[in-house]
């Protein structure tokens, strides 16, 4: 059979696949305004030499073994559309949506392909053009993702009754009975993600003075979900900064970094949030703007190249000032820790910290200095836990697969504590641990450092009987 013929016969078998006009020879670059790939960094496509060295760093490729779900394949799919050789089909869209945007492939790629600058604009264009009714009117997306999550006050308000139920032990009872699964779809998943009930603590004051010799003036970024769900982590972080001679300012008027909007097809909403932050932080007053969650940090550091208008230079200057708190302390030289923390711990790399910001060794170096801490290297530490921004809500199946993979790796270290510096990862791993009934403690590195400075002991939780069995087995 000649090639044309079998090609046609393939087509008749798949009337739904609008993979038409495909030509392997056609090299015309038709990236006009209409093209979904109009906004991508085309030079990055040319940089990819198709070597495949990135595939084994990609979580979705590791899980599926399919090039369509790996970086090399995704780049090829984007290039086909960019070159005008085919329209985007539903299957292609699916593979691109399954990408976690974790950017592990960027760390792996020796040719320096900046994959984020391909997938992000491409997906934004898909979202913007998406006319499917269910998506446009998606209450979840419009109501919760874009209008509730990014606003700490609203979120806290909604969380309050949930916390009450949790404190009364009702949620864990419901969870044990599997009743949360009865909540409709993603709402149920959202409820499962909620952290265990801890007192959120008061809001951070506008100013916290350095302890001892003054070494730096810093501004602290509080964010949205991070502030609503992990305020104790914020308190721990600013105390650690104070101990390290930092005057810490917490400017009022700051808010969400904009990442949730940007990654869910609302770049203008994201810009609004970004510009509010530009106003809130007076750059010249601070040596650095510090962030303690990887996801927010990555977004803030990218302010300089998401939007192209008159404010861009100012945004770029803002971005230059942003530092991850571990990166900053590691550079500054950390004041010796005081108290011993006699536990075994392992560190999970948040994608947005290790791949997007390339901060991997600083947190490890800091943790290694805590006296008594037995720090164990986590296998596949840089593979995404499945949280990926709002991925756990939008691609539940793959997200669950990846969080189970992560938990297995954590258990293989035998550590009592797992540390990670990102709200999404903390929520995801906590949920996995809770559902398995494990006594494993999930914490932010700053919390452990804070304990050491304060000379306090870490109290370990006991797991359920089922959980203990699981820990002993692995």
């Amino acid at each position, binding site marked *: *059979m000649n*090639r044309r013929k*079998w*090609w046609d*016969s*393939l*087509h*008749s*078998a*798949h009337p739904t*696949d609008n*993979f038409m006009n*495909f030509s*392997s020879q056609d*090299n015309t670059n038709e990236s006009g305004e209409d093209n979904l790939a109009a906004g991508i960094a085309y030079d990055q496509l*040319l*940089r*990819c*030499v*198709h*070597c*495949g*060295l*990135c*595939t*084994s760093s990609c979580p979705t490729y590791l899980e599926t*073994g*399919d*090039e*369509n779900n790996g970086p*090399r*394949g995704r780049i*090829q*799919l984007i290039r*086909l559309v960019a070159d005008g050789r*085919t329209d985007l*089909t539903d*299957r*292609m869209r699916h*593979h691109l949506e399954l990408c976690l945007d974790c950017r592990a492939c960027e760390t*792996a*790629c*020796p*040719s*320096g*392909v900046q994959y984020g600058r391909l997938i992000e604009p491409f997906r934004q264009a898909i979202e913007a053009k998406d006319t499917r009714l269910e998506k446009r009117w998606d209450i979840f997306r419009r109501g919760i993702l874009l209008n509730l999550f990014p606003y700490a006050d609203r979120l806290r308000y909604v969380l309050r009754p949930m916390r009450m139920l949790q404190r009364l032990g009702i949620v864990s009872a419901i969870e044990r009975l599997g009743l949360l699964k009865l909540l409709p779809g993603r709402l149920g998943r959202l409820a499962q993600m909620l952290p265990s009930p801890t007192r959120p603590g008061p809001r951070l004051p506008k100013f916290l003075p350095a302890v001892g010799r003054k070494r730096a003036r810093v501004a602290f970024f509080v964010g949205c979900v991070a502030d609503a769900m992990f305020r104790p982590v914020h308190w721990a972080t600013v105390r650690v900064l104070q101990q390290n001679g930092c005057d810490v300012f917490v400017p009022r008027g700051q808010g969400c970094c904009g990442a949730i909007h940007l990654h869910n097809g609302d770049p203008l909403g994201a810009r609004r949030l970004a510009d509010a932050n530009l106003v809130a932080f007076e750059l010249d007053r601070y040596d650095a703007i510090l962030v303690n969650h990887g996801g927010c940090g990555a977004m803030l550091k990218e302010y300089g190249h998401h939007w192209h208008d008159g404010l861009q230079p100012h945004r770029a200057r803002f971005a230059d000032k942003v530092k991850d708190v571990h990166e900053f302390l590691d550079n500054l030289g950390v004041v010796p820790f005081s108290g011993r923390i006699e536990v075994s711990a392992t560190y999970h790399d948040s994608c947005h910290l290790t791949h997007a910001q390339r901060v991997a060794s600083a947190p490890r170096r800091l943790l290694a200095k805590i006296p008594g801490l037995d720090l164990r290297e986590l*296998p596949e530490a840089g593979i995404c836990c499945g949280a990926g921004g709002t991925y756990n809500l939008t691609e539940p199946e793959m997200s669950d697969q990846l969080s189970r993979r992560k938990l297995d790796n954590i258990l293989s270290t035998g550590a009592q504590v797992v540390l990670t510096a990102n709200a999404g990862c903390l929520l995801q791993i906590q949920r996995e641990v809770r559902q398995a009934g494990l006594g494993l403690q999930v914490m932010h590195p700053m919390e452990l450092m804070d304990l050491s400075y304060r000379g306090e002991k870490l109290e370990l939780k006991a797991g359920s009987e089922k959980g203990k069995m699981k820990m002993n087995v692995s």
Partner: protein
Amino acid sequence: MSNTELIRKLRAALKPENVLSVPSELVVYDCDAFTVERHIPLAVVFPRSAVQVAEVVRACSDHGCPVVARGAGTGLAGGCTPPPNGVVIVLTRMNKILDIRLRDAMALVEPGVLNLQLTNALSGTGYHFAPDPSSQGTATIGGNVATNAGGPHTLKYGVTVNHVAGLEVVLGDGSILQFGPVEDPAALDLARVVCGSEGTLAIVTKIWAKLTKNPQACRTIRATFASIDDASQAVSQIIAAGIVPAALELMDRGILDAVEAAFALGVPPEAAAVLIIELDGPEAGLDSLLEQVIALCRNWNPGEVLQAKTPAERELLWKCRKMAVGAVGRLSPGYMIQDGVVPRTRLPHIFRRILEIAAKHRVRIVNVAHAGDGNVHPILLLDERDRDLTARAKAASREVLEECITCGGSITAEHGVGIEKIELMEKLFAPADLRAMHRVRQAFDPASQLNPGKKYKTICQ
């Protein structure tokens, strides 16, 4: 049977989620890391066991369409580019380490296990899997066996075939056979025949891999030279002195530019070539051997000789070397990498000829080489969209390889023949040799069901 029927049959045998048949999902399987030639397959399947591989092979054979095995698709010679109307059998979902027996220094693995995955699983045991192709973080052990992959440490430890004790394979008629792992003097050593056969004799479904004890100690140095000629003279001398380093690698200025951009290794800009030399073995005597090697290098006026002082420094050196080819994207949107072999004394000659050939065809060529093995990897920079340049690069490639043959060498050390070098087989081998190979192929796969059009096209057609 129509294509639709075949696909229905494959779905029934493997479950629908393990079969791709929608054109827009097949397109990413149109080539491997050799991108100059592409074909979209008829279907792509992900079997999970040897039995399923056999079922696929039988169904395809009934349907009269060929199959091609694929691991990670990092092959550089188009080994897993689908033949027209072909079905791709991807082995990445057969990725379990089934058994590690340290007492026998052996591991039993499925073909989709990544090379580095095995070595990582062995960490702390004092053993490792010796073949270390630069692609080891991504390439599968099945692919390593099929291409008989080598790496920097091949110089001392040998290529993949030296580290395979046995194989389970599926033949073109769907039968499942096992060769080894116990050595049986009564049997023909068929596992060795399958190694390096590029998926044309059998599909490998299990590998008994031999494990190698970690060396007690090692020393790694990096020496810069004012010319590639000086560097290759130093290589010849070291080998002539009877020293067998664990690895002896060369990089020229062109590739160093890419490496510097990627990893900031810190090689002085005036250096025209770098040698990475590693010695390993028992601690005693290693330092005096190192001095001997450095003294030999001194004959060729090295700019600087630096020793890796910490494991991290050693790792960086190796990372730079191993990621060098991948970093070529920093120089050009595409490339073609060659894999010629020459006797080690002819290294200076071949590098000189490569320069001339590059100038003649107006193609930029940068070089890495497993110099200790006389294995050169000239990398020809191209842009697939520029057809004229691509054609010139192909012509230059061919001329380089012909030069290797003239020097008494070969056209491939480790990347395989694939479709890329098929035309050159006749130049390299006498008709009688080719006939013998062809008969072996027929004995394994009489219907040319497995990966046709690769390695020995000239005889098959």
